[in-house]
């Protein structure tokens, strides 16, 4: 029964993908759209082999992932403590939340101008944009998660003598952890969106640059190759972060 189900859960999506490829194949074989604008599956496969042989596509993936990881980790390192502080101080919230909301509402792509002015073309400006894109959502979500902690936990903590650092590490952090993990997944997804846009104007390599490069070269086949790689890498990043929800001490946030 279980085997049957897992077989089905593999067969269903595979057959959907195969159907899409088949429709795609028929459309391009019948030349429904101009071939220069609508590559065939075979052309894409050749394009992929070409890119893989040259190794350029892998360099692009590494460049983009490195930027996302660095900007994202920096945002977590700064954003979570800031969120904890704002979450625990009404005065700090009153002072800073309007500012946080402003930057949260500001499209991260608006930072591209300053990123290039300040950091030039390359890793630094892309990392800066990703940092700016993910910092404020992380801060906001941490504040919101703290507001959701049931008061009972703090009363119990008081009864059992948990104060200061112990209260933070043994009550506040574990209490927000399930929500925090969800936030990290959303923020990583956002970072992966943003890196493509950031690399279109501020980089000489990376998947965003590869999109631009393929378009400039009128290589629709490579455009599809890069898009597929962007999608798959994004799914893998989320899958990796989703593993965090399997930690036993956070299961309570998802199971009930």
């Amino acid at each position, binding site marked *: 029964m279980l085997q049957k189900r897992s077989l089905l859960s593999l067969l269903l999506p595979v057959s959907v993908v195969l159907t899409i490829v088949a429709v795609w194949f028929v459309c391009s074989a019948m030349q429904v759209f101009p071939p220069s604008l609508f590559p065939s599956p075979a052309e894409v496969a050749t394009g992929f082999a070409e890119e893989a042989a040259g190794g350029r596509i892998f360099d692009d993936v590494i460049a983009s992932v490195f930027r996302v990881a660095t900007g994202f980790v920096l945002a977590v390192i700064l954003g979570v403590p800031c969120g904890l502080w704002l979450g625990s101080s009404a005065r700090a919230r009153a002072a800073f939340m309007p500012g946080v909301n402003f930057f949260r509402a500001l499209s991260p792509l608006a930072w591209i101008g300053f990123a290039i002015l300040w950091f030039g073309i390359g890793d630094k400006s892309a990392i800066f944009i990703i940092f700016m894109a993910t910092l404020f959502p992380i801060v906001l979500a941490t504040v919101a998660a703290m507001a959701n902690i*049931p008061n*009972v*936990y703090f*009363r*119990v903590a*008081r*009864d*059992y*003598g948990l104060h200061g650092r112990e209260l933070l590490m043994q*009550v506040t952090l*574990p*209490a927000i*952890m399930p929500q925090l993990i969800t936030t990290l997944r959303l923020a990583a997804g956002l970072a992966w969106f943003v890196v493509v846009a950031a690399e279109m104007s501020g980089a000489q390599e990376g998947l965003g640059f590869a999109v631009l490069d393929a378009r400039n070269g009128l290589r629709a086949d490579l455009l599809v190759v890069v898009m597929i790689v962007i999608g798959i890498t994004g799914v893998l990043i989320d899958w990796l972060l989703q593993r965090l929800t399997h930690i*036993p*001490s*956070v*299961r*309570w*946030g998802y*199971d*009930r």
Partner: protein
Amino acid sequence: MNSNAHTTPVAPSITEPSLQLANVSRSFGTMHVFDNLSLEIARGEFVAIVGPSGCGKSTLLNLLSGFDKPTSGTITRHGKTRMVFQQDGLFPWLTARENIALGLRHLHDDTARQSQIDELLALMGLQPFDAYYPHQLSGGMRQRVEIARALAGETDILLLDEPFSSLDYLTRLRLRSEFTRLLSERPRTVVFVTHDIEEAAHMADRVVVLSERPARICCEVRLSTQRPRDLTHPAVVEAVKRILDEMGLREGNENRAK
């Protein structure tokens, strides 16, 4: 005040009150929850507080625990208090064992701590579930773990806020007898808030009946019968009758004596 039937105090050391409220008033804005309430609870005494819902039973516990402060009057506490909540008082990110360990934080020797936890788990019949997280346990087991956590270590005063009210009747009955048995092994001063009059009469040395807001003590019923008591013991039945009378909740003739 008009308690006259069973006036023998169970706890011998009435001389040293564990908790003392003297002329305590507490109001939230214009709402007066307590007006000049005085109550003394002896060391080792088991006091149940009953009353109509919304009369301030939980506020009373908050005052006793020090979580809330009275508007006027004084509260004296001799010893450390721990509260047991109606539900969800356990930390969901800790296993049953880890939750109970929280009650033994004063023990620095891990072997001593673990053996104490094992003893508590055994007392509660929870050994097979020590590695379970609260959300994997039934409501009754969660309350057992919470009581074990509260009884671990050297707390003097236990405050319970309707700890069994979210459970079904049979589980409630079982937990009453388990709680009583545990108390006989680890005596504590107990303040037990409940809306369940039968529960109060079944377990307590003294049942304090509160009136509507602003709450005053409208009567106190003492029960001198040893625990564990049978639910149908005449003293328990008599106490239930008296409390129902006081609250004006009995149907028909009040002198329907046994």
